Every structure is written in C-alpha cells, then in structure tokens.
C-alpha cells in the first residue's frame, strides 16, 4: 500500500502555497486579524520565549491521518548538524527554561539523545513529543529507559481509550502498540504520583469537530485506561485539529472544510488569545528557519519580516516581543476552550 503522505501521493496540498491559498479563499465571517482586534489584542505579539520547540524532521514511523506535518517514513527532511548546534547554543545562551522536541518522530533523529543530554546538562526542562509506537521498534526499545534516566517529560498521543478510534486516526495496530508502550513507561515510574516522571497524553478529535472539555475527558481517560489496561498518567491535553496538511486533505475530501472552518470562527473565544502558544514559544524548523509555531512552520509562514528569520541570527532580545504572523488556521487555537501544544488554554 502506498504511503499516504501528501508528498508521496503527489497531492497539490504537498505545496504549502496551495494550502495557504485554499484557506485564504474560504469565505469566513471574519478574519483572524479582526477577531484579535475585537478581543483587544491587536497587533498580536509574543510576550516572552519560555519554550524553544525544535522540529527535528518530518521522518516518522507512522503516517497519521490528521498529521499537520505530513510526516511519514518517506520524508527525508532531517535537521542538519549546523542547525542543531546553533539551536543548542541559542538555548544555552538564553534563560529559556524548556525545550520541546517534536517532529515527525523526533527520536528517529540520530542526534536526538544528544539534544536531550545537552539540554538537561544546561538545566532545562525537556519535553519529548512521543508517538509511543516508536518504542516498539527494535532499535528504540530502550528509549523509555533513556528518557526516564534524564527526567524527560513524555507527551504522548492517544486520541481515544478505544482501539477503533485510535487506529482510525493513527493506523492499524497503533492502539495495541501504544498500550504496550504506556505499560512500559508506567513500570519505570512515568505517570505515577510522586515519581517526578511526567507522562502526559494528547488527544485530537478523530474527525471534524472540536475537542470535548479537557477536565471531563481527563477524568474519562484516567478511569477507562486504569480500569481497562491498568495504565496511569498525569494530564490529558486536548488539541484542536488544524486545517493543515493531511487534516486539511481529510476536510476537503470529506466535504467538511467550510463547515469546520465556520465552526472554528463561530467558536472563537476571546479568553483564549492570552494563552496562545505562539506568544511564548519559538519554533525552529528542520532547516533552521524560525516560526511562531509548528503550524506556521508547516505552511511556511516564517517569523515576521522585522524579526530574525533563522536560528543562526536569533537573539531572545529580537524575538521575545515579535509580531506574530497569523492566518485563518489560527482560529484553531482560539476555538472553544482554546488549544495549544499544552492542551486547552482557557481554565474552566
């Protein structure tokens, strides 16, 4: 079966300009600019950099249907050495407390473990965006031990505590492998109260609708994963699907794009603007270019023209209060309870 990445299937959406044009052509009740202005936050600016997010590449052992990265086994974009070195030096020079390593499957990068080790040696909190199934591959079976040994926070995707929905989004057999991985993490203390090893789960809706209330879903997940599989974890993060890459393709092919975008716009929550992750995150692409967030990265919306464009000329001084580059997709982060890489942004 052919790999379902946009690149491999030669979809027009593999070109980020086509994605941007598709979104910009949609008739929406208002622009994100207008929504932010009405909420009293125009122009939208960063407030600080407390998270340096590195996207170390698009290679992944999975090819999830909702992936905004269009990641997959056929992708060859991998963060080169000069970019990694520059990013780590930038981190070490700064007082940014957290490094968030994502991809694709970031653990596939040959220097992943070195990045973790150096960041921890610099006293920074490290987050690994883990798809769980990577730990079931022969060369990565010791990954949980490595992460535990370095006190890395694991943020793992699990859209449902049921196999059918999980596999529908992430691929056949992913649920069973994910449960095996979670049990392995639990044996090392991850997710166990008082262990200090954080295991947080992420759920994206399996379809064209907004996520449910985070606190209610967390209670459901804890009850059901505990009851059914004996699995424990710390927090559940709900993340809204963004109309980018493969999720955009799904919306288009299922006839849900206009309806979903209308939903995002009408569900705009002014209270979610304060906690937008672009306001405290700096995203570094595999090629060293800088972005306000991973979503902007995937549609090639680099940082504002008056801010540094690459990690090679980055300074916290020049970036901490930069103007944020926005587009229609940004409604995904302000809908309902708000959304970010750390889940809902509006406290209930």
């Amino acid at each position, binding site marked *: 079966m052919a790999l379902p990445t946009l690149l491999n299937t030669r979809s027009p959406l593999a070109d980020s300009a086509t994605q941007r044009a598709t979104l910009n052509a949609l008739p929406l009740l208002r622009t994100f600019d207008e929504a932010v202005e009405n909420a009293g936050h125009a122009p939208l600016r960063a407030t600080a950099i407390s998270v340096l997010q590195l996207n170390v590449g698009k290679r992944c052992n999975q090819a999830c249907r909702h992936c905004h990265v269009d990641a997959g086994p056929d992708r060859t974009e991998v963060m080169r050495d000069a970019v990694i070195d520059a990013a780590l030096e930038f981190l070490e020079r700064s007082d940014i407390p957290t490094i968030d390593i994502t991809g694709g499957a970031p653990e596939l990068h040959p220097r992943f473990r070195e990045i973790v080790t150096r960041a921890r040696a610099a006293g920074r909190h490290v987050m690994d965006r883990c798809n769980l199934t990577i730990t079931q591959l022969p060369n990565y079976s010791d990954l949980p031990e490595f992460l535990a040994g370095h006190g890395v926070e694991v943020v793992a995707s699990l859209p449902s505590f049921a196999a059918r929905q999980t596999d529908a989004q992430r691929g056949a057999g992913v649920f069973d492998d994910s449960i095996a991985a979670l049990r392995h993490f639990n044996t090392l203390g991850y997710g166990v109260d008082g262990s200090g090893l954080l295991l947080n789960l992420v759920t994206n809706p399996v*379809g064209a609708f907004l996520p*449910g*209330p985070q606190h209610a879903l967390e209670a459901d997940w804890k009850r059901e994963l505990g009851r059914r599989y004996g699995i424990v974890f710390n927090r559940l993060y709900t993340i809204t699907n963004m109309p980018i890459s493969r999720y955009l393709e799904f919306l288009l092919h299922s006839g849900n794009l206009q309806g979903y975008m209308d939903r995002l716009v009408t569900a705009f929550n002014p209270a979610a603007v304060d906690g937008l992750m672009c306001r405290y995150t700096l995203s570094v692409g595999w090629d060293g270019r800088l972005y306000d967030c991973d979503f902007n990265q995937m549609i090639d919306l680099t940082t504002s023209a008056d801010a540094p464009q690459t990690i090679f000329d980055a300074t916290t001084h020049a970036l901490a209060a930069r103007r944020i580059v926005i587009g229609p997709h940004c409604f995904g982060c302000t809908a309902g309870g708000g959304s970010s890489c750390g889940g809902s942004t509006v406290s209930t």
Partner: protein
Amino acid sequence: METYYHPKDLARFGEIGKEAPELWQKFSEWYAAVFKEGALSEREKALIALAVAHTVQCPYCIDAYSTTSLEKGATPEQMTEAVHVAAAIRGGSSLVHGVQMRNHVDKLSM
C-alpha cells in the same frame, strides 16, 4: 433533487425571530440556560437531546446534537446507546398501549 430538508437551513434558524423578535429572544435565552451544566453535565444533556432528536425525528437536531455530543466528549458507542434508549421508549410506548387494546378486547369479548 427536490427535498423538504436542507442542511444549510439550520444556520438560518434565527430567521424565525424576524416576525416575533421578543418571543425568539425569550426562547433563545431559555434554550441556552437549559443546556448549561447544572445537576446534569453538558455531555449528559447533549446525549438526552440526541435521543430526543431521534424520537421527534428532527434532522436538524440530529445533526446538531451529533456534533455537540462529540464535542462534549461523548463516544460513538455512548451516542448509539442513546439512540437505542430513544427507540426503546418509542417501541415501549406503542407496546404499553397494547394494554388498552387488551382491555377493549376483553370488554367486547365473550
């Protein structure tokens, strides 16, 4: 194809308020209050609404509360059980009227 129901008409629901704006406003405020979290959670209310939508067979309500149920964190399994609850009540209400049938048959019969 001609049809009585058009999914896009759901978005025009507010137009019913044009000739009676005060009544629409009272309805809208009460409706919003009904679905707020109270003794029942928003999810429970959405599932009840979903079941009732199948009972009255309103296609707009079925669409709207299918989406709402998902957005309140209900699973397809929970939603299917809710539809069965609706079906069970409808079926049961027909059957229980069979007691009246039996009463009448008894009255007429030797």
